[in-house]
């Protein structure tokens, strides 16, 4: 054997950095989560500041835990395991460093811009265009570093964990780019190039697959590496891992539309999303079983090893949430659960259980190895496990109860056939005790995280003066994959093709050819995406136009921008589903054609407050003013934050023109408004301000933000109520 041994060192400094960042951002993200949980239990926790209101902090929480906590955890584990599995140091220390600091800078950017109300209003894609570009650049840096390492590897075969990393890297790049395509309308303002139904479709294609390729596949990769390492047993079934990978990569992409059941989405797309979601249950449980059975013969270790304890709960939570997800995607279940806290409970089973426990288990396993010191306290790690378990259970139990209560109350009719709880606030008040329990559960979970932080600190303090960097040796990679063992496949054999197919050769070859493998993965993701997206975008009958639906006036557009800035869509949907209890409560159900000028769509995914799709004309202008100034002066037990600053902050007329111009650029027919937006806005504002003054409001409000917001709210859902519109015109071809 003519093998040239090569020596190399692993870069564990980058692993240490990502490990610490995971902890720090995890603590920050979860603390913000606790604050917003308290805000729902008692609105005084909004602190009377616009920057700390629920609508602005909620995206900060989700972004922090998804991209800062889980993102850094993925990078931490991937940098450690990739180097070992490929027997090579990372391709470039500089790229590793740029990746680390670039990512942290992006997180800081998010932490500053989101409380300032700079948002695209798309869930988990709220960050504005300059930060989106930075994300793309840093992601490319990561990808070059990762694929460069693959190119310089000293191990032919790519272990299953690496496949999951590859899938995550390519899919996230694709999702991020296509969902964030927008036209800038200012340094930190942009409008999605998609509108209404198509924007919703694109967003939930992204949103669902962000869960897939940020929170699932990377963590499965980590599971397939760290769980066998911790259990000191190889993965239960490598066959199952191959099946798990390909089915998951192919199917996840299809499932997005289950977030849009009973909305104005075409029926066929919705059904397709449901079917693939139900099918997803199988590979997901395949992965769960594979993870749990990896502990075969090692269950005695679970008793004494906190790392394995964390992993067992993580995989169990993965199993629970991947059963629940398909169940929630079934339309009839979804009709009950959608817009309720049930979804929040489902998400937190996955996030606290699967992502959280897997991350903390991995951190405890890595700590002694990367800090080169004995774990400071195993007892503290055990305590962390029990705090986390109890906290999570308390959290999800309370919120499952809240979700079911809410869903059932919304749809309850009395004996006379009328809504049993016609006042939305009644259904909210019932949830308050559960919100307190949720906050308690979350606090307990955070206490566990603090214990972890103390353990990290003390272990780090016990590190050697200089980290040892051992030299490793491995033979250089031969240029070609070794030929099949003689006799396994006879040359010229007519059954050659079948023999090759049923042997392990073809998949091994793929795995030995990272480019081919990556292309196959991309194909699986792209084909599935195109099959769904192309028809939605190109079949015009999917989104019939409604003659009476016109673009927002410049002032209404400014009001909509304020609605977006304040994050109102985090609590209020704008989508009346064609379900009787919804039309009874909110009015005529929403039609696809009503949203053709909505860049971005604002359907929302949660109803902490009532739906606003038909809000226009329901209440007077002065009602809105008083309600925004102090919601509790109108609805005594409301949990909505107050927005008194809207009465003092002035509208920026120059900005209105810029925004109208940007909208016109993406095809909204603004006509003359393109040249005279400020004048038109002033004219409409003066009218509203005069009406308000007549009703007792302060005078001279015509240049204040509240007037624009009122203009927008009063417009919502009114276009199809205009005289002369036939119902057939409004509903034809909408797929129902």
């Amino acid at each position, binding site marked *: 054997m003519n093998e040239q041994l*090569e020596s190399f*060192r692993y870069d564990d400094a980058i692993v240490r950095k990502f490990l610490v960042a995971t902890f720090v951002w995890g603590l920050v993200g979860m603390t913000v989560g606790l604050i917003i949980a308290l805000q729902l239990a008692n609105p005084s926790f909004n602190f009377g500041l616009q920057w700390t209101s629920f609508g602005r902090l909620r995206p900060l929480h989700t972004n922090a835990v998804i991209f800062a906590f889980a993102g850094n955890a993925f990078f931490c584990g991937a940098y450690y395991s990739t180097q070992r599995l490929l027997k090579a140091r990372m391709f470039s220390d500089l790229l590793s460093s740029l990746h680390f600091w670039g990512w942290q800078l992006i997180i800081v950017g998010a932490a500053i811009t989101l409380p300032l109300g700079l948002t695209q209003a798309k869930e988990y894609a709220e960050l504005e265009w300059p930060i989106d570009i930075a994300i793309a650049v840093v992601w490319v840096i990561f990808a070059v570093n990762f694929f460069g390492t693959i190119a310089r590897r000293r191990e032919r075969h790519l272990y299953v964990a690496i496949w999951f990393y590859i899938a995550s890297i390519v899919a996230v790049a694709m999702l991020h780019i296509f969902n964030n395509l927008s036209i800038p309308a200012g340094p930190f303002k942009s409008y999605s190039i998609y509108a209404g139904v198509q924007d919703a479709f694109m967003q939930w294609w992204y949103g669902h697959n962000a869960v897939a390729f940020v929170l699932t596949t990377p963590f499965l990769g980590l599971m397939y590496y760290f769980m066998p390492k911790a259990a000191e047993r190889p993965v239960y079934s490598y066959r199952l891992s191959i099946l798990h990978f390909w089915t998951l990569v192919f199917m996840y992409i299809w499932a997005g539309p289950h977030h849009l059941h009973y909305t104005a989405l075409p029926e066929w797309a919705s059904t397709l999303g449901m079917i693939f979601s139900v099918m997803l249950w199988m590979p997901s449980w395949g992965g769960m079983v594979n993870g749990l059975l990896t502990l075969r013969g090692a269950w005695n270790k679970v008793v004494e090893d906190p790392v394995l304890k964390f992993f067992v709960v993580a995989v169990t939570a993965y199993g629970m949430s991947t059963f629940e997800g398909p169940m929630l995607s079934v339309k009839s279940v979804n009709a009950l659960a959608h817009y309720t806290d049930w979804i929040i409970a489902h998400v937190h089973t996955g996030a606290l259980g699967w992502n959280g426990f897997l991350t903390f288990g991995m951190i405890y396993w890595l700590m002694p190895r990367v800090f080169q010191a004995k774990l400071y306290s195993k007892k503290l790690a055990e305590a962390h496990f029990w705090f986390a378990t109890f906290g999570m259970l308390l959290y999800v139990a309370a919120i499952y109860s809240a979700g079911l209560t809410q869903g059932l109350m919304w749809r309850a009719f009395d004996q006379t056939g009328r809504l049993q709880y016609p006042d939305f606030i009644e259904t909210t008040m019932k949830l308050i005790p559960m919100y307190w329990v949720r906050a308690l559960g979350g606090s307990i979970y955070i206490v566990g995280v603090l214990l972890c932080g103390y353990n990290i600190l003390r272990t780090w303090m016990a590190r050697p003066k200089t980290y040892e960097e051992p030299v490793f*040796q491995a033979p250089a990679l031969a240029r070609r994959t070794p030929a099949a063992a003689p006799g396994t496949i006879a040359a010229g054999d007519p059954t050659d093709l079948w023999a090759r197919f049923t042997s392990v050769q073809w998949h091994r070859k793929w795995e030995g050819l990272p480019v081919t493998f990556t292309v196959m993965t991309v194909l699986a993701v792209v084909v599935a995406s195109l099959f769904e997206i192309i028809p939605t975008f190109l079949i015009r009958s999917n989104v019939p136009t409604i003659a009476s639906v016109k673009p927002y006036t410049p002032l209404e557009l400014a009001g909509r921008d304020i609605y977006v800035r304040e994050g109102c869509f985090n609590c209020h949907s704008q989508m009346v589903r064609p379900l009787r209890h919804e039309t009874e409560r909110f009015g005529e159900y929403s039609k696809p054609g009503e949203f053709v000028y909505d860049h971005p769509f604002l359907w929302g995914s949660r109803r902490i407050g009532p739906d606003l799709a038909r809000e226009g004309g329901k209440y007077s202008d002065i009602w809105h003013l008083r309600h925004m100034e102090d919601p509790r002066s109108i609805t005594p037990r409301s949990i909505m934050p107050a927005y008194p600053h809207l009465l003092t902050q002035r509208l920026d007329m120059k900005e209105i023109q810029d925004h109208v111009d940007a909208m016109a650029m993406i095809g909204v027919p603004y006509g003359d408004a393109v040249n005279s937006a400020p004048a038109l806005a002033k004219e409409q504002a003066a009218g509203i301000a005069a009406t308000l003054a007549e009703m007792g409001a302060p005078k001279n409000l015509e240049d204040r933000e509240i007037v624009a917001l009122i203009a927008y709210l009063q417009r919502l859902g009114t276009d199809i109520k205009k005289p002369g519109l036939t119902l057939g015109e409004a509903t034809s071809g909408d797929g129902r």
Partner: protein
Amino acid sequence: MRLSDVMGHAGLSIYAEIALVIFLGVFAAIVIRLVTSKRSEMERRARMPFDEAEPKHDPTVKESDHA
């Protein structure tokens, strides 16, 4: 005639059924291949996390990669 008109008349809603068939075909192929693959090979792959490079230091070998 716009592209969307062409696509609108192309009957693309059958995409969903076609895709389902493609997926089931690929899925069946992977299952068959996995069921018939060699156990020893699979076991070898599964052991990869334990097949790490050994820490050694021999000054006579060629050093590369930042070593």
